[in-house]
């Protein structure tokens, strides 16, 4: 019997609010990464050309692809950083346990993914504007997206970032259990890529990317990404139970 009963959910909310304030550096690094990606994108993300008899054409492409790719890597690394000792031990300013700490982390990473996803869409337009002003690119053709299409695109962007964040969280937790994983994971990943490409027909990354990228229904993409992310988070939580208790 206590004077004030505090539910776990209340602590999760408190920790989440605390993390939004104290992990603010995550958003600063996002800004730097996006500015960098925007400038890289200013050179265009592709070009094609051809001719047919007396007709020839050149097409330059500007897109938010590079910005999204950079932000997905940002999400991955950010999630790893959050699992480090310095960040984890900070949670003990509150009455807490590991589960509460994980849930508040996941909530924070969700919010970070949401903010990042929205700003990816916005910064692709900053890139377009800079292309018009700085690179003097005229006559840019673009798809006129409806509000629904914009919302779908932003949602998909957020989901892709969240997927990378969940992988990062899992990887980070593995490294926290044993430092050896910080060496084994990149070596294993590159090793798999090399093995996969030995027969000049790499399929590993393509198969994974197609599993998500070929999905034409947002609902199904949502189900796929949330399921895979949940799996990574559950694994991360289970792994963290093997870690030593803070004394």
């Amino acid at each position, binding site marked *: 019997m206590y004077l004030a009963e505090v539910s776990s959910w209340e602590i999760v909310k408190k920790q989440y609010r605390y993390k939004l304030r104290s*992990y*603010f*550096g*995550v*958003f*600063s*690094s*996002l*800004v*730097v990464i*996006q*500015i*960098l990606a925007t400038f*890289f994108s200013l050179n265009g993300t592709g070009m*094609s050309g*051809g001719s*047919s008899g*007396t*007709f*020839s*054409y050149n*097409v*330059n*492409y500007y*897109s*938010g*692809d590079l910005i*999204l790719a*950079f932000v997905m*890597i*940002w999400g991955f*690394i*950010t999630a790893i950083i959050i699992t480090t000792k310095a960040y984890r031990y900070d949670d003990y300013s509150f009455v807490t346990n590991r589960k509460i700490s994980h849930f508040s982390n996941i909530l924070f990473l969700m919010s970070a993914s949401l903010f990042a996803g929205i700003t*990816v*869409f*916005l*910064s*692709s*337009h*900053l890139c*377009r*504007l800079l*292309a018009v002003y700085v690179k003097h690119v*005229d*006559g*840019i*053709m*673009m*798809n*006129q*997206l409806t509000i629904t*299409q914009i919302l*779908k*695109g932003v949602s*998909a962007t957020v989901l*892709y970032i969240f997927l990378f964040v969940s992988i990062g969280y899992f990887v980070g937790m593995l490294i926290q259990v044993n430092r050896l994983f910080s060496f084994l994971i990149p070596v294993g990943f590159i090793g798999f890529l090399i093995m996969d490409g030995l027969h000049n027909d790499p399929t590993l990354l393509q198969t994974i*990317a197609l599993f998500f990228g*070929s*999905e*034409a229904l947002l609902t199904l993409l949502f189900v796929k990404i949330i399921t895979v992310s949940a799996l990574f988070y559950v694994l991360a939580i289970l792994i963290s139970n093997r870690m030593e208790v803070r004394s």
Partner: protein
Amino acid sequence: MTVMVSVLPILIIILLVTGIGTYAFKSHKKRYRSPRRMKWVVGGYTILLFVATVLSYTFFPGNPTESISFSEEEISKVENEQDRMINLALNGTLPKTDGIFTKKKTWTFPYEEKDLKISDKNEQEYHANVFVVSKPSDDGVIEAAHYMGKMIVDGIDFTEKKNLPKINVEESTLRIKAPEGIEVNFTKFSEGFAFDQFTRGQSLFSRSYFSVHGSEFILLKVPKSVKVSGDFNYVNME
């Protein structure tokens, strides 16, 4: 070296995220609140992005591609239909061209000779199939028509931009001269693959830059008694 260049952006991201993240966390520990300057930077950047997006949609709306662009399936269908019709014509039967080929220009030449040669000497970098139909009577007129299929570059129709060949008849020779060359440069913008995935049904890997170069042919209707020589195919019209 190439590997280093491709890995460089990832290394930069890792260094930046780790550096800024660690710095921000340490400074937070000292002051127990996020540095005011960081809030201003993030807030200012977000406002800048909103303003840029509003400007992008309002003052620089871009040329919409929606109304004139074709999907990959549509382009594939157009290309297959063009090829099918040309092949049928090469085998002697020209089907109705409705919707697949458009008659762009017609010429008429009064002609009283008995022989006609189709010249190809001036056709630099230009080749159009020539199909010849023998008219049922000797009306003393050669009718020529230029038919053009859709020319689509990266989903956008450029058929109207393409110039027409020049045709004339001199001393029992029909000459086809190449049209003036034209070069088209344009820029396409997309918000990213996550947007394309749900807007035009393009998956991550099927976002190919599809084009169809547009077949064309010249149809000649010659008087019954005129004998034609040169590079051409006789056809019957359906």
